């Protein structure tokens, strides 16, 4: 059994929606092993994205604690969380969220602006990340000049360029056709198996979940484990 990378203990998350309080996660306990690839499935509003946001330090729990590696996220300030995210977490979104004014290369370099690397070093690392996702020849292209699959590959390169331990993917294939989605999922599998990245992937797509080692089903604020078939 691999070492535990992330632990959620008694985590609850409640949002205020108008006058009503909505509990999205309820007293959740979860351990995520380093190097694992987990798919999180469930209906809309079941708390999948909230779970990702808590693990990525974008949100704080109403109750309970979130620990990733040696960091207790619940007790960190906003600026500490920003710094922590820049080195520990890679985010991949459904709609890629690339900056349209920057080339693929410059988009990938963005997280490295927060480091002390020189311009040349940043460019070199971005080129390596683009090479890993198979887009070395598209470095100078702007997002509008790329297909959806290529944009998502650039987003993946941006997520891995600072070599984070944990990749958080929020429906990474939700906007792609089946063939392209499979290519992206295979790439995630490679990142997990060959580069040792721990991946938590939220998805609605059962076929996508099959690429993961485990699937967790999220419903009414609780999680239930199901083995991948």
């Amino acid at each position, binding site marked *: 059994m691999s070492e535990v990378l992330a632990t959620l203990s008694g985590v609850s998350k409640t949002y205020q929606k108008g006058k009503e309080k909505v509990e999205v996660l309820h007293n959740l306990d979860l351990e995520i092993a380093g190097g694992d690839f987990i798919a999180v499935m469930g209906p809309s509003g079941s708390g999948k994205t909230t779970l990702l946001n808590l693990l990525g330090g974008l949100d704080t729990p109403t109750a309970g604690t979130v620990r990733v590696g040696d960091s207790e996220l619940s007790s960190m300030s906003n600026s500490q969380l920003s710094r922590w995210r*820049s080195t520990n977490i890679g985010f991949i979104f459904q709609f890629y969220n690339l900056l349209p004014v920057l080339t693929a290369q410059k988009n990938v370099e963005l997280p490295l602006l927060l480091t002390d690397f020189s311009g040349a070093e940043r460019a070199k690392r971005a080129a390596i990340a683009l090479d890993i996702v198979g887009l070395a020849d598209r470095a100078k292209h702007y997002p509008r000049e790329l297909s959806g699959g290529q944009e998502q590959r650039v987003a993946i390169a941006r997520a891995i360029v600072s070599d984070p331990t944990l990749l958080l993917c929020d429906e990474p294939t939700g906007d792609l056709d089946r063939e392209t989605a499979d290519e992206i999922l295979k790439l995630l599998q490679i990142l997990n198996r060959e580069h040792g990245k721990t991946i938590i992937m939220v998805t609605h797509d059962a076929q996508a979940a099959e690429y993961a080692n485990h699937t967790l089903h999220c419903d009414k604020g609780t999680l239930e484990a199901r083995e991948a078939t």
Partner: protein
Amino acid sequence: MKYFGLVWKNVWRKKIRTSLTLLSVFVAFLLFALLSAIGYAFKGGEDVADAERLIVIDKVSLINPLPQAYRNRIASTPGVHSVAHASWFGGFYQEPRNQFGQFPTNPYEYFSMYPELKMPQEQLDAWAKNRQGAVVGREIADQFNIKVGDRIPIQATIWTKSDGSRTWEFDIEGIFETDDPRGSTAFMLFQHDYFEEARAFAKGTVGWYVLRVEPGADPVEVSNAIDLQFANSPNETETSTEAAFAQSFAKQFGNIALIVTLILGAVFFTLLLVSGNTMSQSVRERISELAVLKTLGFSDRSVLGVVLSESILIMLMGGLLGLGVGWVLVQGAAQAMGAFLPGIYLSPQSILIAIAVMIGAGIVAGVFPALKAMRLSIIDALARA
């Protein structure tokens, strides 16, 4: 500096909108340059005034002459180091539109009183020896192509000669410069003795006296002592510092400084609205991008800095361009209008003020959009996207 590429790309996100904003900034600072330079000219050399030089004029009006006999009495007043005098001639060269200042004076006294004026000693000596000699400033020499050795006619508009003629002829014996970049050389000096001998009226008078106080003497006390001497005489005097004299001279044309300030105030207020609107739109359009930056680890302050830098960069680009073009136009205006309005000058102080205004306006225009970006909730912004 490492964020510069990101800031630059964001500034040019909407090229037409940015170009139009730049154009408004450009025009505002072009106006600033031109109006500052003209305002400077109307200040009448207030900034180049020497604190130890005093001007003595007739108490009633600058145009009333003072008796020449006052010279020795002023010179013997305690605290007075040296005295010179000059008068307004008011002629033109060749055609009425070629007007510039001409002043009859004493060569050595005048150049000793104004050490910032530079001319070779041999030219000064030659002028002092020639009663019909005159010297011109570099600006006049260049504008009218006047050289040492030329004999030039000046048509008098006030001072007819004893023989009824209005044409005064002068031998150019020297060309003077100034080592103060703010000072003007757009005038001509000639010998008072020639003026005194040839003019038809007002003999025995001068326009005004200039005096230098002894080192350590109190200029106010010296002024009071001089004015007291001539109190209750037919020609009472008013003695003031050179700066105060320049100010009162400029006020004859109205409060130019206030007019310039009001125009520029209106221009910059409009500019703030235009650029503030540009920045607000720019931030509104990319809420999700700013949220992504924060997700990647950009701190609240980094995001604030990026947006503020964009606003300041727009101001600096348009402003420096406007100031640069303004500077070129001011040089041209100084040459073309130097004779009528000497001292048109874009001072280093004005340039520094303009740059400070650019940065300040950039901050003011960008601060609210930048704060909005800084306070952005990542969760809400990503959910909206």
